[in-house]
C-alpha cells in the first residue's frame, strides 16, 4: 500500500479545457470563452458553405465543438448553428433559386413558341434547385460531422434531431416553402411540382424529357420531411408531390380512356393500355420513385382499364369473340393481362369466352344430332339399296355406321374446339387457373346439353378400338383415344357412358374385333386415372374373363390331346366362359335349349365335364346365339371337288348340319329339330337361303320372305368366288347403334342402376348418421353421387320413399322440419 505520505498527486480529471496548444493559450484557465470558440466554428462553417473547406482542420473544429459541449454549451451551439443555417439559406440559396423563378414558367397557354421557352426556363429552375439542395446537403453533412459529439450527447439526452435533420428541415422551410417570386403567389415547392407535372405530361405525349433531372428533384423531395422526426410517411414527396401527380394522372387517363373507347378498336385499346402501364413503370423507376409504381398503376388500371374493359371485350367486330375466332393470340394475351390487373377472377373475359364456347358447342350438338336422329331419308335409303345390290358387301357396313359417323363427327368437332381453346389458354391466358376452369365449365355445359353425348363418346371410342379403324396409324389412334378420354371427364352422366362402353366393349371382345387386349387394357388404365376404380371395375372383369377362357381352352385342348379324343372329333373348340354378372348380356330363355348336332354335343359334354372337374359347383349355360363357327363343306364339281370354308353364327351351323342327314326340311321341321327360337331360325335361314351370295340352301318357293311352310333343301350347285367366306346375319339394324327403343331401354337400365346406387348411398349415409334432416340427406347424397352422374332430385325422393316403405328409414316426428331416422 502506498501511504498518503508518498506524495502522489491526486487522481483527478485532467483539465481538459485548458489544453496547452498555442492556439488555445488565450483561453482563461477554467472558463471557455464561448463567443471566441464559436467565432472559430462560425468562420469555418461559413467557409464550408462557400465550398472552401479543404483547408479546414476537422480535428480543430471537432475539438472546439467538443469543448463547448463539455462545458454544457451544447444547446447554445445548436441554436447558433441553426441561426447560421437560416441565414445562409435565406440570403444565399433562396436568392439564387428565386432569380430563376420567372413567371413564364406558370403560363399555361399552349402557344408553341412560348411553350419551348417555358420549358427551358423550367428546366433551368429545376437544375438550380436540385443543385442547391445537393450542395446544401453536402455542407450540412460536413457540419454534422464536426458536431458529431454534440449530436451524440443530445440523442442520449433526449433531443433526437441531429444537426443534419435540422439543416434539411430548414432547407424545406426557408427555401421550398418560401414564395417563389414576389409577383407570384406560389411557393418554390409548388412551382417545382408544377414543372415536374408539366414535364411528365410532355413525356406522355411522346416528347423526350430530361429524366435524370426529374429524378434528382424527386430524390430531393424524398429526402425532405414534413416533420422533424423524419417519419417515413412525412416525406415531402409523399405528402406533397405524389398526390398531385396521381390526381393529374387520373385526369389524364380518364380522358384518354374515353377517347380510346370511342375511336379505337379492342386491339388498339389493349396494346395502348399495356404500353401506358409499362411507360408508367419505367417512369417510376427512372424519374420518380419506385414506391409510386403500385399507386400510379392502380390509377391507370382504374381509369383506363376497369372503366372500359367490359365495353372493349364486347366490342362488336373487334372484341373478344373476334379474337377467339381468329386466334389472335397476342390480342387475347393483352386482353388477359389487362383484365387480370383489375379483376383477379377475370369475370368479363371469362363470361365472354364461356358464351362463345357454348355457342360453338351447341352448333356442334345440333349438327351431330341431325345426322344421327333424323332417319335416313327415303332417297338415301333407296340409293343405298341400289348400291347394296350392286356391290353386296360394303353396303350394310356403310349403312350401319350411319350413327357412328355422327358420333365420330361430333367427337372430332368437340376435340377440335377443345384443342383450339387449349392452345388459346396456354398461349394467351398463360394457363391461368381461373380461365382453365372457365373453359372446363363451358365444355361441360355444352357437352351435357347433348343427351346423347355419352353414347357418342362410347361409339367414338369403340370405333377406334376396333380393328376396323384402319385408315389411321397406331399413334394417331392413340392420340384420338387419349382425347376421347379427356372428353369423358366433362360428362356429367358418367354412368351412362359406363353402360354404353361396357356393352360395346363386351361385343368387341366376344366378336374378337378389338385391336388387341393390350390396347383395351391401356384404355381402361386411362379411364381409371380420370374416373376412378369404380368406373372400370366391370370392364376389367370382361378382360379377365376373356383371358381365363383362353387359358381354359388351352387347358382343355391339352386335356383332350392326352385323352386322344381331340383327333377323333376334328372340332376345334374355343369356348368363352363369361361370368354372368359381369357381362351385359341378357339371355332369353328360348336361346338356351338349342339342340346341337351330335358331334358338337359330344364336344360340349366333354368340355362340361372338364370344366366342372376344375370348378365344382358352377353352372355352365350355353349361349348358342353368341357363338361363331367355321365349317368346311365339300362340293363335287365335276372331277374336282371344291372345299369351302364357311364361317358364320352357331345357329347357321346347327341348321346346315341338319342337311347332312336330311334332304328336305320344312321351316317347322327345322325349328323342331333344333329347338332354336323361330325368329332366330328365320333370321338364319334368310342369310343362308335368301341372301344372294351365300345361298347354301334351296328354298321353295323362292321368295324374299321366310314362311313357316317353306321347304328347304341342300343346294348342291352352290358356288362362291372365294374359298373362304363368311355368312353374315341379315338384320335391318346395326349391331352397335341403338334404335330409339333400345336407347330407351339403355336409359331405363341406367336409371335402374342409378336407383340402386342412390339406395345404397342413402342407406350408407343414414347408417352412419342415424338421423338427418331431409335437406342434409339430399345434399350428402348428391355429393356422393356427383362423381358418377347428376342425380335427379325427384328420383332421390322416390328412393327415400321406397326405403321408408321397405322399413330402412322412418320419418322424423317433427313434420315441419322433415327428417329421417335410420332403422337398424
Amino acid at each position, binding site marked *: *500500500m502506498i501511504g498518503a505520505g508518498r506524495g502522489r*498527486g491526486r487522481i483527478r*480529471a*485532467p483539465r481538459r479545457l485548458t489544453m*496547452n*496548444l498555442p492556439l488555445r493559450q488565450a483561453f482563461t484557465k477554467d472558463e471557455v470563452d464561448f463567443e471566441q470558440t464559436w467565432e472559430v466554428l462560425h468562420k469555418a462553417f461559413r467557409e464550408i458553405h462557400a465550398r472552401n473547406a479543404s483547408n479546414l482542420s*476537422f480535428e480543430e473544429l471537432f475539438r472546439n465543438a467538443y469543448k463547448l459541449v463539455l462545458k454544457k454549451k451544447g444547446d447554445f451551439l445548436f441554436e447558433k448553428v441553426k441561426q447560421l443555417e437560416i441565414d445562409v439559406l435565406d440570403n444565399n440559396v433562396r436568392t439564387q433559386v428565386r432569380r430563376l423563378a420567372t413567371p413564364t414558367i406558370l403560363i399555361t397557354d399552349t402557344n408553341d413558341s412560348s411553350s419551348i421557352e417555358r420549358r427551358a426556363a423550367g428546366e433551368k429552375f429545376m437544375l438550380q434547385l436540385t443543385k442547391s439542395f445537393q450542395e446544401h446537403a453536402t455542407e450540412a453533412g460536413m457540419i454534422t*460531422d464536426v458536431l458529431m459529439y454534440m449530436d451524440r450527447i443530445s440523442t442520449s439526452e433526449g433531443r433526437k434531431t441531429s444537426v443534419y435533420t435540422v439543416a434539411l428541415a430548414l432547407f424545406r422551410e426557408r427555401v421550398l416553402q418560401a414564395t417563389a417570386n414576389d409577383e407570384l403567389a406560389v411557393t418554390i415547392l409548388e412551382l417545382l411540382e408544377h414543372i415536374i407535372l408539366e414535364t411528365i405530361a410532355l413525356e406522355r405525349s411522346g416528347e423526350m424529357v430530361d429524366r435524370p433531372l426529374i429524378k434528382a428533384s424527386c430524390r430531393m423531395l424524398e429526402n425532405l420531411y414534413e416533420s422533424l422526426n423524419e417519419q417515413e410517411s412525412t416525406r415531402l414527396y409523399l405528402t406533397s408531390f405524389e398526390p398531385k401527380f396521381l390526381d393529374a394522372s387520373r385526369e389524364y387517363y380518364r380522358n384518354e380512356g374515353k377517347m380510346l373507347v370511342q375511336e379505337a378498336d379492342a386491339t388498339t385499346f389493349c396494346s395502348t393500355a399495356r404500353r401506358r402501364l409499362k411507360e408508367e413503370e419505367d417512369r417510376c423507376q427512372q424519374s420518380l420513385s419506385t414506391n409510386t409504381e403500385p399507386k400510379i398503376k392502380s390509377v391507370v388500371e382504374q381509369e383506363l382499364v376497369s372503366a372500359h374493359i367490359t365495353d372493349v371485350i364486347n366490342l362488336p367486330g373487334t372484341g373478344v369473340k373476334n379474337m377467339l375466332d381468329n386466334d389472335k393470340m397476342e390480342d387475347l394475351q393483352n386482353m388477359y393481362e389487362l383484365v387480370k390487373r383489375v379483376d383477379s377472377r377475370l369475370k368479363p373475359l371469362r363470361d365472354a369466352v364461356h358464351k362463345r364456347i357454348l355457342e360453338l358447342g351447341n352448333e356442334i350438338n345440333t349438327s351431330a344430332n341431325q345426322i344421327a336422329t333424323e332417319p335416313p331419308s327415303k332417297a338415301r335409303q333407296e340409293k343405298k339399296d341400289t348400291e347394296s345390290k350392286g356391290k353386296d358387301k360394303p353396303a350394310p357396313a356403310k349403312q350401319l355406321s350411319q350413327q357412328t359417323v355422327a358420333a365420330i363427327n361430333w367427337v372430332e368437332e368437340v376435340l377440335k374446339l377443345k384443342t383450339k381453346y387449349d392452345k388459346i389458354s396456354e398461349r394467351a391466358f398463360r394457363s391461368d387457373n381461373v380461365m382453365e376452369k372457365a373453359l372446363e365449365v363451358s365444355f361441360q355445359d355444352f357437352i351435357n346439353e347433348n343427351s346423347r353425348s355419352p353414347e357418342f363418346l362410347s361409339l367414338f371410342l369403340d370405333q377406334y378400338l376396333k380393328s376396323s379403324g384402319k385408315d389411321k396409324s397406331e399413334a394417331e389412334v392413340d392420340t384420338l383415344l387419349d382425347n376421347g378420354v379427356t372428353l369423358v371427364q366433362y360428362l356429367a352422366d358418367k354412368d351412362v357412358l359406363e353402360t354404353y362402353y361396357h356393352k360395346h366393349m363386351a361385343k368387341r371382345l366376344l366378336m374378337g374385333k378389338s385391336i388387341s387386349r393390350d390396347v383395351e387394357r391401356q384404355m381402361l388404365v386411362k379411364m381409371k386415372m380420370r374416373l376412378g376404380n369404380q368406373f372400370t371395375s366391370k370392364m376389367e372383369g370382361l378382360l379377365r374373363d376373356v383371358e381365363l377362357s383362353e387359358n381354359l381352352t388351352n387347358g382343355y385342348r391339352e386335356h383332350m390331346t392326352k385323352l386322344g379324343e381331340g383327333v377323333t372329333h376334328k372340332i376345334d373348340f374355343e369356348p368363352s366362359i363369361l361370368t354372368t354378372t359381369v357381362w351385359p348380356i341378357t339371355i332369353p330363355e328360348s336361346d338356351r335349349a338349342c339342340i346341337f348336332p351330335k358331334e358338337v354335343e359330344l364336344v360340349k359334354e366333354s368340355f362340361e365335364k372338364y370344366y366342372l372337374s376344375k370348378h365344382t359347383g358352377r353352372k355352365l349355360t350355353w349361349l348358342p346365339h353368341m357363338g361363331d363357327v367355321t365349317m368346311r363343306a365339300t362340293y363335287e364339281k365335276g372331277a374336282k371337288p371344291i372345299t369351302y370354308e364357311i364361317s358364320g353364327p352357331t345357329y347357321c351351323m346347327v341348321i346346315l348340319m341338319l342337311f347332312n342327314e336330311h334332304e328336305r326340311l320344312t321351316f317347322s321341321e327345322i325349328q323342331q329339330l333344333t329347338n332354336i327360337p323361330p325368329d332366330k331360325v328365320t333370321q338364319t335361314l334368310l342369310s343362308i337361303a335368301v341372301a344372294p351370295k351365300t345361298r347354301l340352301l334351296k328354298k321353295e318357293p323362292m321368295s324374299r320372305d321366310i314362311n313357316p311352310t317353306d321347304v328347304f333343301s341342300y343346294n348342291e350347285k352352290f358356288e362362291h368366288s372365294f374359298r373362304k367366306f363368311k355368312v353374315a346375319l341379315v338384320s335391318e339394324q346395326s349391331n352397335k347403334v341403338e334404335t330409339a327403343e333400345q336407347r330407351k331401354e339403355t336409359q331405363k337400365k341406367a336409371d335402374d342402376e342409378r336407383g340402386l346406387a342412390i339406395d345404397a348411398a342413402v342407406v350408407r349415409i343414414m347408417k352412419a348418421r342415424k338421423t338427418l334432416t331431409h335437406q342434409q340427406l339430399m345434399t350428402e347424397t348428391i355429393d356422393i353421387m356427383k362423381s358418377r352422374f347428376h342425380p335427379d332430385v325427384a328420383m332421390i325422393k322416390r328412393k327415400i320413399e321406397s326405403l321408408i316403405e321397405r322399413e330402412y328409414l322412418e320419418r322424423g316426428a317433427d313434420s315441419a322440419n322433415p327428417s329421417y331416422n335410420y332403422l337398424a
Partner: protein
Amino acid sequence: MSNHSLLRKDQLEVSLHNEKKLIEEGVLKEDNPLDLTEDFRRLCEASRRGDLKVCQEMIQEGANINAKDQYDYTPLILASLCGHYETVQLLLESGALCERDTFQGERCLYNALNDRIRNLLLSYDYSKSTDPLQPLAAHLTSLLYRQQPRTCDLTVAAGNDKDPFELHKFILAARSPYFKKKLDTAPETTAWKLPSSIPQQSFGIALKHLYLGELPRELGGGPGTGFSDSEILAGVDRISKHLEIKNLSELILDNSDRRLARQRRQDDVQFGVSQLDAWFRNNVLYHAIEIETSKANDVKWDRVNGIFADILLRADDDEDEDEDGDIVQKLTGDTNVSTNALGIPLGTGTPSRSPSRSRSVRKSKLYPCHKAMLIRSEFFMTMFDSHFKEAQDTPHLQIIPIDCSPAVLEIILAFLYSERSDFGLDIAIDVLFASDMLFLEKLKTKAAVIISTLGNGTATGMQDQLQRDDVDLDIYEILRAAWTTRVQRLEEFAARYFAYRLEQYIDEPAFAEIVKESAGRIQARQETDTIEILDDIKYYLSERFRLRFEDTGFDEALAAEEQAQHVELQNIPNIGDFETSKKPAGVPTDEGVDMSSPPRELEHEVPPQQEVSLEHEGIIRTLDGEVAGDEFEQDAMNYQILLGKIDTLLDQLKLDA
C-alpha cells in the same frame, strides 16, 4: 457437443472421457487448467469474498481467469456460489467462461446463489465473453473490402487483372515474415502482380487468413473459375509455405470438429493480434518522435516510409509540469515495487519515459500511425471520410494533434492496434475522457471498470482503505467526470464511495457544492423531483448499515428503535441482551463462504466513525457513553445521524428532496 437436446448421463460421461483423452493427447487445450500460483489463489480468495478490487488487480496481473484451484473451483464458480453479483459481472466482462454444455459451465450455473446471478451467467454466452478479440479481427477482415475511406497502400493484381486485391503493407509486414522482408527492401512498392500459376482464390484465402478472417468453407473453385478445388488447395499450400504462415489447407480441411475449429480460430486470432501488437510496439511506438512542442508541426515525414505510416498523431505533454513529472516518477516507482499491495500494473507496453527533461520546454510526441487502424474510432472514420484537410493527400504525412497526453494516446493506440487495454488508475480518468471524445465505448467502459474497482468503495475486506483512498481519489472530480461522460457505473461508484465515507465528506463545502450540481442536472426541476446523487447515497448508506443488521436479524429492532430515538433509550440493555444472545449464531462457519470478514471489518471501521460522531453532535457523546460496548447500536445511531445531516444539508441548500 452443443446439440440442443440434453445429454444423458452416460453420454455425458463418454464425452467427458473423450475430451479428457483429447486433452491428454494435446489436441485440445484444457479450458480450465489447474493453477496453483499465488496470484490465482488470491483471485479465488477475492472472488469468494466478493472483493472487486483484488479481483481486478489479479486479473490485471495476468492471473488465468479460467483456471481452477486444487478443488476444481474456478473464480467464476466461487463468485456465483457466494452470490457476489458485481464480482461475477467483473469476471464475465474480463473473459471468464460460462458455457452451457460444458462440465464447468453447467456447474457454475447450477451453483449460482440466486436467479439474478444465474440470469447474468446465461446472458454471457460464448460469443460475448470469450472472444474479446473478435471486434478487432472483424475490423481487419473488413479492411479487405472497405472502399471508403481509402486506406490501402498496395495493390496486388491477380492473373486475370480483374478485382485486384487492395492491401495494407503494415498488416502484411506484421503478419508475414516473407512480406516483411520483401517490403523492407522496397517499401515504396505500390503494386505487385501475382504469378498466374497461383490461383487467385488461393491468394484470397491466404489474405483472408492474414487479415484474421475466418477460413471459408467453400474453396470457390470448380467450373467457371479456372481452377479446381484441389488446385486451389495446392495453391494455398504453396503460398502458406512461401509466406511462412501456418499450413492453411490443413486448417481448411479440418473444419469439422466445432470445438477444435473454434480453438484453432481463437489461437489464430490471438497469435495474429500478438503479431500486430509486437509490430505496433516495434514500429509505431519505437518510431515515435519526441520533439519540442513549438517545432512539432514542422516535422516532415515522407509518404514512403519504412513502417508504412500514413498519418502522424501528435500528443502534447501536460502543461502542468510538476504533476506530469510526478506521474512519470510514480510510474517508474511503481514498476519497481510492483509486488506491493496496490500493485497498479503497468501496461507492459508503456515504456518509461525519461523523466529527465528540461522543465522549461514543452514537449510533444508524434506517433506514426495507420489510418486503417485508426478508423476503428468513429472520430477518425469521420475525419478521413470527410472533405476536410485531414482527408487530403499531402506530400508529407499530415500531423493531427490529439487532445491528450502521450501516455494516454499510447493506450488508445494500443487499444486500436491490438485491443489491449491495460492501464492504471492513475491515468484512467484521462483515458475515460479521451475515449469518450474518440467514441471508443469499449475503452471507456474499461476505464470506468478500472476506476470503480481499483478505487474501490465497498467496505469489504479492506482495512487500510479509508486512509489511502483519501489520497488517491478526488471523488468529486470522478463524479463530475462521470456526469460529463455519462457513465452510469461511475456515478453509482461515486455514490457508494460517498456513502461509505459520508462522515468524512458530509461537512465539506465541496460536498454541498456537488449536491447542488446534481440537483441542477435535472432541467426545469420540480419540487417533487429528487436529487439523484443523494438518492444513490441514501441507498448505499442503507446498504452499508443494513448489511450488518441483517446478519443478526436486527431489522425489526431497528424499526422500533427509529421511533424511540429521540426519546430516552431506556430499554437498550434489553436490546443489547438480545443482540449478544444472537451474536454467536450470526457468525457462521461455512467453509465455502467466508463470512468471517464483516465482523472483523466492523471493528476496524468503528473508530473513525466514532471520531466523526464525537466531533459534531452533543447527543452522540451521551449515547456513545452509554452504548460504547455495542457496535450494532452505534451503527444504528450513526445511520440516523448521517441521514439527519443530509436533511440539514438540504435545508441549507434550500432544496427539497
